[in-house]
């Protein structure tokens, strides 16, 4: 597959949204929800490529009044949703479009009232949601795609049960999965976009792309739609070949083992302990 350039993204998005446009046209207001939990570069696959978010929002603005269209930034416990749009380029990208980029903070988002709970931000509860996640491996959830990305907008670092709970209360009208870059342990320029009104089916496909059994992703129920129907015209083999299967970095576990070993060594040798192994800094 060829690289998907910004110029190519828009027609692909238009095509993916075409079958859902009638449903969206009647919406009183629409929230476009990209994965934006930390200031990672779009080529890492950790966050949604803002070019894809822009294409989705601008495509929607042809059938939805821009005044009734917003891009919602969730942020996380590690990066607030006020500065993230600037770091990720959303502020500049949407300047002059009439489409507001808003923080889910203050709407009960992950840094707002939703912290620690599963209260869905009002913005997501009261509006039609168009989910624009990316696809990444995760040590905690194994995979973050459509469903888990949605859960991140409610609660930072969600567990599987939170993903399930959020999926029951927020059902996107449509999801456009940004596969221009995905993170499969390392970034991969994978050059695809997927669209579906069925978040479970979309995640089933994503699991397949990453080479994961559906059972390995705890929050993923049985598919409610046949996978092949979504991918008509796209050869799964080529997606798999592009997204090379790699093990996600087990960094945190390695660090714990290293700290334990180093503490033992320090006691035996009298050497100083590196600060990060001295103990928790709670302040």
């Amino acid at each position, binding site marked *: 597959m060829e690289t998907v350039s910004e110029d190519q993204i828009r027609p692909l998005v238009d095509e993916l949204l075409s079958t859902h446009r009638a449903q969206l046209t009647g919406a009183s207001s629409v929230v476009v929800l990209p994965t934006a939990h*930390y200031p990672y570069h779009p080529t890492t696959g950790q966050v949604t490529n803002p070019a894809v978010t822009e294409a989705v929002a601008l495509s929607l603005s042809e059938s939805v009044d821009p005044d009734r269209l917003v891009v919602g930034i969730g942020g996380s416990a590690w*990066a607030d949703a006020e500065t993230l749009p600037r770091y*990720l380029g959303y502020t500049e990208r949407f300047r002059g479009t009439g489409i507001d980029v808003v923080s889910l903070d203050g709407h009960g988002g992950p840094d707002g009232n939703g912290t620690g709970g599963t209260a869905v931000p009002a913005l997501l509860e009261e509006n039609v949601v168009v989910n624009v996640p990316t696809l990444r491996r995760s040590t905690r959830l194994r995979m973050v795609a459509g469903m888990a990305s949605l859960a991140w907008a409610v609660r930072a670092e969600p567990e599987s049960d939170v993903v399930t709970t959020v999926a029951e209360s927020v059902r996107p009208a449509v999801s456009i999965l940004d596969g221009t870059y995905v993170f499969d342990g390392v970034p991969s320029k994978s050059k695809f976009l997927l669209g579906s009104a069925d978040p479970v089916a979309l995640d089933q496909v994503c699991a397949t792309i990453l080479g994961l059994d559906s059972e390995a992703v705890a929050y993923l129920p049985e598919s409610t739609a046949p996978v092949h129907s979504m991918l008509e015209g796209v050869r799964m083999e080529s997606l798999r070949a592009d997204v090379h299967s790699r093990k996600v970095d087990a960094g945190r576990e390695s660090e714990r083992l290293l700290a334990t070993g180093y503490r033992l060594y320090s006691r*035996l040798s*009298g*050497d100083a302990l590196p*600060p990060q192994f*001295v103990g928790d800094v709670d*302040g």
Partner: protein
Amino acid sequence: MSTDIAVGVLGAGNIGTVHVQSARAMDGVSVECVADTDPGRRERVERLGVDRVYEDYRALLAAEPLDVVVVALPPFLHCEATVEAARRGSNVFVEKPFARTPAEGQRMIEAADDGGVVLGVDHTLRYQPEIQRLHEEYESGRLGHVPLATATRVNHGPFEPPEPSAPVPDWQLDPEATGGGALIDLGVHLLDVLEWFFGGLELRHAELETQLNLPYEDTATLVLRSTESGTTAVLNCGFFQWERPPDINTSVRLDGITETVDSSQYLPRNLFVHASKAAAKNVVRRAVGREPSYFEPTYYYRAHFEALREFVEAVRAGRTPPVTGVDGLRTVEIVSQAYEMAGKRSPVPTVEVGR
């Protein structure tokens, strides 16, 4: 009466804590006190055995007569802390960047001169074994004339690789607090090394870029010229790459008349193997009653240990430290010129620092 060098450390972040541990391990040195605004960090240094901890570094300086003050505070406090410590008669070892602006650096040097004390800067690259080995090769003449040099340092700056575990620190993304981006944070190390190798550098070209839309440069390239050695040096630094120790993206490459050498070739082939061997040696040292080679398994923290030790020994002996305040100021001056050249004014307003 103790003849120990009395040390106080301002700022107990990771590197500040390394300085605490390093100083405590040195013969004839006592760590009298530490200051940090963060209670968790104060508890950490207390656990390490520091008796007196302060929340406010000014209170520490007012209360404690010290031979050496280590300034490991955020850059926006380097100048006022150094000026105050020097005014009270302490020699000052300053974390990089030495200052946010040349004006601040000049003020710090004046304060040290007025107080009759010396300043040092923690430019640790000089103390890394692979850089020292490269310097030896260069000084030996084996490479002949070196027309080209390339120095690179890239890491993830204020961010974390996946999966993040701590909030993005606000002040590290405030250019007024830091003095700038990757160039002043990482580039100053490279400038110090290049001037150590080649003498005074003239800035010929500066490119400053951003990969994310940050309030300062996260990517910088400088072209510099040493008229003394006739070397053109290219400096690259950035905040855009995930760094996972022990893999550190730092290198200095010299293209000489006779051959090319790169500092990377002098790194331990496998830093885990290096750590294991160094650890085993230190255990044996303990068994035979000798002191460990402190921080040797970590490789990089060892350089901080050596930098502080050489500064303290210089103070004890009454000689000029290896890396002086003037050296630190030179790096900040070049950074400032680069910001001007690239059309970016210093983010730090020019203010008179109180005497």
